[in-house]
C-alpha cells in the first residue's frame, strides 16, 4: 500500500477549537480547559483511504493575532487547509472569510479548503446559520461540515473528505511530502478545488 504524506493546516480565530479538533482526530480526546496554542503545533496521524495510506502532517496554528503573520509558513505547501469558525461566534465566521481571501491570494493554487463550523453541540447559542455557512462554502467550492470536537461529531469526516478531494497521483508521481502536490499542473482543477 502506498503512503502519501499530506500537509494540512488549521486556520481560524482564537478559541474556535482548532487544537481541540486536532486533538480529537489524533488522540480521540477532549480537554475543556485546553490552553491557547503558542506558535504552531505539529502532529501527524496516518489513516487508510482506499488503497492508500494517508499520513496527515497537521499544522495546528495559533489563532492569536500576534502569530498571524506566521501563517504563510504553515499553509505554504499545504495540500489542504481546514478553516475553523465557532458557530456561536459570528465574528469568527468573518475571520474565516478573511482567511479564505488570504489563501486565495497567497496560498498554494490547488489547496483543498475545508470549512468546519465547530462547537455544533452548542446550538442553543448559535450565531451562524448552517445554511449561510453551507452556501458560502459552496460558493467557494469548499468542503463544509459542522463539527463538535467535544462530542466527536464529524471530526474524522473532515479528514475523509479531504482525502477524497486530494488529486489522485499520476503514474510516476510518488509524493514524499504534501508540498509536491502544488507542483502538479492542475490549471483546470484550480478553479474548482481552490477557493
Amino acid at each position, binding site marked *: 500500500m502506498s503512503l502519501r504524506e499530506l500537509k494540512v493546516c488549521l486556520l481560524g480565530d482564537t478559541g474556535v477549537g482548532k487544537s481541540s479538533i486536532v486533538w480529537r482526530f489524533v488522540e480521540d480526546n477532549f480537554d475543556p480547559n485546553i490552553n491557547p496554542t503558542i506558535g504552531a503545533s*505539529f502532529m501527524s496521524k496516518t489513516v487508510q483511504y482506499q488503497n492508500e495510506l494517508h499520513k496527515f502532517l497537521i499544522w495546528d496554528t495559533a489563532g492569536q493575532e500576534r502569530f498571524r*503573520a506566521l501563517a504563510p509558513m504553515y499553509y505554504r505547501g499545504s495540500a489542504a487547509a481546514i478553516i475553523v469558525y465557532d458557530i456561536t461566534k459570528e465574528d469568527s465566521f468573518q475571520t474565516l472569510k478573511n482567511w479564505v481571501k488570504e489563501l486565495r491570494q497567497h496560498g498554494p493554487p490547488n489547496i483543498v479548503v475545508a470549512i468546519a463550523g465547530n462547537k455544533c453541540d452548542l446550538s442553543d447559542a448559535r450565531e451562524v446559520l448552517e445554511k449561510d455557512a453551507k452556501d458560502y462554502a459552496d460558493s467557494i467550492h469548499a468542503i463544509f461540515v459542522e463539527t463538535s470536537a467535544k462530542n466527536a461529531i464529524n471530526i474524522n469526516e473532515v479528514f475523509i473528505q479531504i482525502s477524497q478531494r486530494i488529486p489522485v497521483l499520476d503514474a510516476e508521481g510518488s509524493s514524499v511530502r504534501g508540498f509536491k502536490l502544488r507542483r502538479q499542473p492542475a490549471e483546470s482543477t484550480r478553479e474548482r478545488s481552490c477557493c
Partner: protein
Amino acid sequence: MPSHPEGILESSDPTSEENPRTQDHQPDLQKLHIQSSETDSGKASQDSALDNGHDDSGEFVVTMLARSKVEEQGMGTKDASSPLSETGTPLGPPSHRNEDVTADSWRQHRKHVFVLSEAGKPIYSRYGSEEALSSTMGVMMALVSFVQSGDNTIRSVYSDEHTVVFTQRGPLVLVSVSSSRQSEQQLRQELLYVYNQIVSMLTQASITRIFEHKKNYDLRRLLAGSEKILDGLLNLVDSDPSILLSAVHCLPLASSLRDSLSQILQKSITPNLVFSILIAKNQLLTIVQEKTVIEDARLEPSDLHLLLNLIGASSAFQAGEIWTPICLPSFNPDCYFYAYISYLDPPECTVCLVLLSTDKEAFYSVAECKRKIEEAMQTQNALNSIAKAHLYSVSQVGVSDLRHFMYKPFDVPDNHRQLTQFTSPEMEAPYSSEEERMRLLDLYRDMHSRIHSTSRPLKLIYHVAERETLLAWVTSKFELYTCFSPLVTKTCAINAITKLLRWIKKEEDRLFIRYPPKYSTTPNPSKSSKSDAH
C-alpha cells in the same frame, strides 16, 4: 544572528479595527476629571461598567496614598463581561480575571502588578479584568505623568501596608503594589521580568514601533491568550528563589550522565541551531550552545527563566511539536529566535527539549535533530536515569540544625562565560506547607535586600528570628543563605557552614553544570540573516 522581528507583526496592521471607545484615557489629570464628569454625554450606556470600576478602583491607589480606608460603596462590577472586551477573547479566562475589583478580597492580594501603556491604557493586571481597572490605571498614569511634568520620575510610594513601585520601559509603564515588604529594588527587578516576558513575546522593536504608530494602541490584542504566561511568571517570582538570586537551578545529576546528555545534544545539530536545552521537572539538565554564540554572548539566567516559565505556564506544549518565535530579551531584545519545543516523555511530560534556531524555516531539520536526540537517549536509557534524578534533602549534608540553604557560587570554572547557577535542597518540614515555604522565602528575601542594600551593603548577617535563625554571607567566591533551627549558637552556625561548604565542594560536579559544552555548526549566512513573513 537572530532574525529581525519584522516578520511577526508585518501583516497585522496595529492600527486596524481599533476600538474607538477606549481612546479617551489620556495621561493627564485634567482629562481624568473630564472623563468622569463626561459620562452622561451620549455614551453612558457603553461606558457603564467602566464607570462602575472607576470610582471604586480608582480610589484604590489614592486610598493607599492617603492611608485611609475607603468604605465599600457597593457598586458592582461583578459581571465581568465588559462592553470594552474585544472580539476573539481567549477561551476560559482563569477565575481571578473575573474578580470583583471593588471587593475587599481584591484589595487584600499580597502583590498586584499592573502594566499599562503611556496613554494610560490597561495592558495587564494580575488580578481582575483590565477593563474594570482602566480607571485605576488611569490614576497610575496620571501620577507618572504629573511627576514627569516636573522633569522628574516617580519611583515609589510607601504607606504603612503597601509599597508601590513604578517603572517605565519604553512606552510601557509597570506598577507593583505590594504588601510583601520586599525592597523596592526587588520589586523593580520583578517588574523588569514582567516587561521582559512581554518582550519575549513581541520584541522591544515591535512594541516601540506599534506605539510610535499609534499612541493609544490596545496591546492586549497582541497579548491575548498570553495572560497565563504573565500570571505564571508572577507566581514563579513569588515561589521560586531563582529570580531573586538571578541564577539558574539545575537538577542534580551525576556528572557522567549530564555529560553524556550534553554529548547527545552536541551531536544532533543542524545549521542555524544556536541553543539546545534539556529541561526536566522545570529545572535545567543541560544546555549546549553554538560555538560562535558562546564567544560573543551567553544565555543569561533571566532569559532562561523566561523560557522555563513559558514552558511551565502553558500546557499547550504538551501536544505535538511546537514551533514558535521567541525573543530572549537579555540576549537581544529586538530579534526572534524560533523555538522547537517538545516533550520527550509523553504523556507524563516532565522532560522537555528546547531547540533554538535563527532560521524560521528550519522546523523540519530541527525536528530531525529531536529524533536523533530521542534515539540516542533511548539507547542509553537516559529517560529512566533522568526520572530518578531529584532534588536532594538537606539531611544529606549531615549537619544537624541546618534546615535549608541557598548557595550561589561565583568561582565556577570559565565563570565569565558560564551560566550563573545556584543550588538548594528541597524545602522540608517545618517548611512543607505553602504558607511556611512562603514565610521562609520572605525571610530570605529580607536577608537578600539587606545584604545587597545600595546604601549600606553588608557581607554577613546573623539574624535570630522568631522561629528560626538565619545566616547570610556574601564573599567574592559565593553568596550563601542558610536557615537553622532557632536555638543554634553563632559558633555552631559557623561550624555548620564550614561543613556545608565542604559538602558542596565535594558534590559540585553533581549540583552544577561545571563545564558548559559547546558545539560548532557551519553558519549558513544566506538563511540566518533575514527572515521575512512572506
